[in-house]
């Protein structure tokens, strides 16, 4: 794992996997854990077909992807190699983030960091299922990579792109802006007030608005209208038109809900996501990368149309923050919860959909376990990120501390 050849070998294996035909893979593309209506490969292909035949793909309510995917895949054929390459780009970005956080060129942990992304089953399986969440994850990592390396224009462009692909990623706007004006190195152990200049933040924010508007224009030209694609792709994560089950927490609430409560609770659920931005960014103002990491954890638990790729990104990013490991309180419990959830989800799904002896409540129970696992991960990461500031002094020194509140 420490040899410099390890990562290239891993990447080559991942590429090879794109050509191997395994019988297991066929079933994956329809798996509700791995693809949601927003990321489904079948819907993308259907949309492409409609697009090529001169029909507005957003009319039938089938396609919920961004028009940018349409433009990408109408030039590049949507083969499995694209997904493998996207995974490799994601892993490369993660390693670069690790480098800029440590301020060094090569390190012995590179292999581990890359493997944490490429070998993470939560990342690998959606990618094998040709879910477009693979591209979303890669763009998020590219955003963070550019921001951590202090290259504002590419970072903001990538951010605009990633918000285009998935509206929920807009949670990352604030931490990315903060990261651009501060340094990516670990300041968790020595917290201090936010040191960046607000004028620069404003400047970058305006730059972001420009990129974002350009992309909106491009997408509108591409889709031949403004309202249709916005309503179908961004609107889907706000008004939840499709209640296909997924490992997230939204769908079941809204299947059970009376229609007249729907708008109110849609507002509550969306606001609930946004409400985390400020507290996390204020508490971790000294380390914006860590704030972004925590917000990814929030997304990976509470996002609408969650797939396993979302918690997967959060879990893989743990590899970038080795300094918090000694302070994690229940890492094993979190891991076991994830193990339970990842076994229960497919089993209960089969019990409900295939065998017909369970019902939706079974699957929802499993997705609650997933929610608990995600929550445990966030709480632990949050705690460790703050606890590290107190340090782990010698016993004599610790005697001087008095714990007032815990």
């Amino acid at each position: 794992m420490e040899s410099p050849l390890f990562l290239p070998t891993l990447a080559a294996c991942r590429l090879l996997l794109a050509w191997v035909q395994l019988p297991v893979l066929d079933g994956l593309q329809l798996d509700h854990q791995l693809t949601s209506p927003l990321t489904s490969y079948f819907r993308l292909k259907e949309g492409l077909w409609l697009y090529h035949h001169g029909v507005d793909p957003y009319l039938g309510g089938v396609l919920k992807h961004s028009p940018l995917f349409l433009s990408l895949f109408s030039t590049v054929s949507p083969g499995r190699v694209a997904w493998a390459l996207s995974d490799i780009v994601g892993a490369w970005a993660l390693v670069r983030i690790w480098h800029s956080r440590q301020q060094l060129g090569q390190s012995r942990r590179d292999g581990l960091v890359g493997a944490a992304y490429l070998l993470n089953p939560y990342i690998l399986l959606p990618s094998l299922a040709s879910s477009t969440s693979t591209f979303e994850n890669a763009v998020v990592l590219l955003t963070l990579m550019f921001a951590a390396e202090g290259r504002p224009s590419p970072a903001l462009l990538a951010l605009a792109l990633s918000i285009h692909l998935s509206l929920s990623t807009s949670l990352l706007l604030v931490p990315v802006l903060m990261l651009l004006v501060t340094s990516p190195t670990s300041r968790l152990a020595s917290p201090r007030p936010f040191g960046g200049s607000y004028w620069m933040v404003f400047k970058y924010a305006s730059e972001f608005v420009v990129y974002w508007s350009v992309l909106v224009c491009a997408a509108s030209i591409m889709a031949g209208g403004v309202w249709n694609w916005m309503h179908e792709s961004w609107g889907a994560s706000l008004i939840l038109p499709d209640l296909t089950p997924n490992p997230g927490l939204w769908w079941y609430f809204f299947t059970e809900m009376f229609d007249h409560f729907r708008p109110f609770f849609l507002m509550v659920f969306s606001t609930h996501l946004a409400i985390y931005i400020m507290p996390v960014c204020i508490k971790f103002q000294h380390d914006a990368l860590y704030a972004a990491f925590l917000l990814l954890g929030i997304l990976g638990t509470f996002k609408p149309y969650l797939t396993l790729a979302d918690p997967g990104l959060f879990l893989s990013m743990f590899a970038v923050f080795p300094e918090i490991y000694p302070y994690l309180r229940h890492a094993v419990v979190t891991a076991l919860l994830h193990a339970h959830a990842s076994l229960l989800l497919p089993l209960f799904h089969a019990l409900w959909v295939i065998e017909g002896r369970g019902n939706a409540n079974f699957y929802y129970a499993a997705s609650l376990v997933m929610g608990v696992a995600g929550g445990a991960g966030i709480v632990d990461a949050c705690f460790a990120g703050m606890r590290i500031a107190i340090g782990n002094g010698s016993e004599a020194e610790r005697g001087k501390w008095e714990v007032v509140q815990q």
Partner: protein
Amino acid sequence: MSLIPIASLSQGTYIDENALQPAQVNTYWNWQDVHRADQYLYHLEGLRDRNSTSEERAQFIRNELANLGLRAATQNYTFTASSGLLSGVNAYAIMASPRTPSSEAMVISATWRSEVGKEPYNLRGISIVLALAAFLKNYSLWAKDIIFVIGDGYLDGMQAWLNAYHGTIPPNLETSLLEYTSGVIWTALNIDYSGHSFSHLGVFFEGLNGRLPNQDLINSVRLISHYTGGVPFIVYDHLEPNDFPDRWQTTSILANAPDFIRQSPQLQDFEYRAKNIVRHINYQARGKPSGAHGLYHKFRIDAITLFAVPATGPHGFLALGRIVESALRTTNNLLERLHASFFFYLFTSPGTFMKIGKFLPSAVLVSAAMMISGLGDWVNAGWLHEAVTENDREEAAAGGPSSKIQGKKMVRWRMRRRPLLRPIFTVLGTHVMGLLAFNLMRSPIFVENHLAASLLLFGALTILPFVFASLPDRTPEVAPFSLLLKSFNLCLASIVISTTSLLNFSLAAILAITLAVPLMYSSCSRSSPPRIVSLAKYVTYSFLAWGWLFLRDEVKQAIWNWEVLGIWFAPFICIVYGPLVTQAGVVSLQP
């Protein structure tokens, strides 16, 4: 777990779906239909005595069904399994419902062979299906199509027919799609009547991979059997103790006990219920269907086998025909799939069952205990327990909060590193090993020379784990490998038990016994035992994990079940159970 058979823990069965209305109709099946069944039986006996081929039999049945004016056809199939080819011919007919477009259907089936009774051929079962076909088409009250299927062989014919019907033909099955099809099948009754007459009607309900049919179906047939047919209804072919008090005394395991124990009704009842549950666990834990009805379950069809318990009397075609007719009328009433009653239950006696909430805790408690013990080991691995020497004592007395006084000796706990990668690789490695072993077992070489191959495989599986058990690292600053591995092993086993407990309780219960005991006691004692003892322990574990390789017939059957029927038991044992016990063996190998 041993409390499960207690009578007061079970509750009475009831019908939950209001549409069923069992035993509420007048039946029309009469002696002339019995006579027709007898005539079919005469022909079938002729076919059996002539040792006719599958082709001839199927052709005969098809012709008879076609003569009735039904759409009838035959289906040829060939299964390719690693143990050889298996082929046969099925016959089936579809009676279109007079009232609806053929969107829903129910099935009555019988297979050529019977495995429960003493007679090898299910001739009377087939005769009554044919006679029923002639009888049922005279009535216009059917709201669903009725499909009559005569499967060749015991399970294989039915499996081929069902796969062809649903268009899910696996690569190892060679057959064409069916000539005639109908709508979605909701319920199915499989009839097994191999004896001359019968005294009781037994129900078999376990399906593939431990799926059970909706309880409403069984309960309806029970009521119909009592009130319409006048036939006592039992589970499996287990007669109730008060059905034959004289013989019960001799077959009971309490036969040699003192009188007051032998004649205690509570104990007799307990033994009867325990017998039912053991039979149930035997089917369900292995994922084996208890009859041809079990194959339907894969396609979400609720199905049971009605077994006519062989006896010299008093019932025959008349009672069975009435029961089946009434049961079909009941399922004909359904407006939606059976969904109301229970899917997870244990039948302790025909009229009583246990809800999942009552029996699940017995397995989950074991799994929780393993989880807690695994987490305990994890915590222990993180701390080093050391006695403080005189010099350190003053320092410690200065007020380290983590030092405490035990007796007179000062004891201090120190944190130590827990390197994770090696245990993780061991766990992954053993499971990959299991996967490879499973694939090897399916190769033709293994099937041909079983003994030599299984000896080799067993040797390989015993020796390979030594790779993981390398030299112990003696530094006190690092947690011992074996403790970490044990903690992982226990947590994994606990997850496996708790997740299977809902899907297949019997399997979870068996695992709770076969995994909990060896895994909990795999640990290293404080004083390291001599090398030879730990080696012996390891070999014992190895036998526990892979010793079943030498059971030739069991292995062959399990592999066949996986290849043809898709039963998960063989891969589960190879990829999950074996490796888990091997990991425990590796733990015991470490000093």
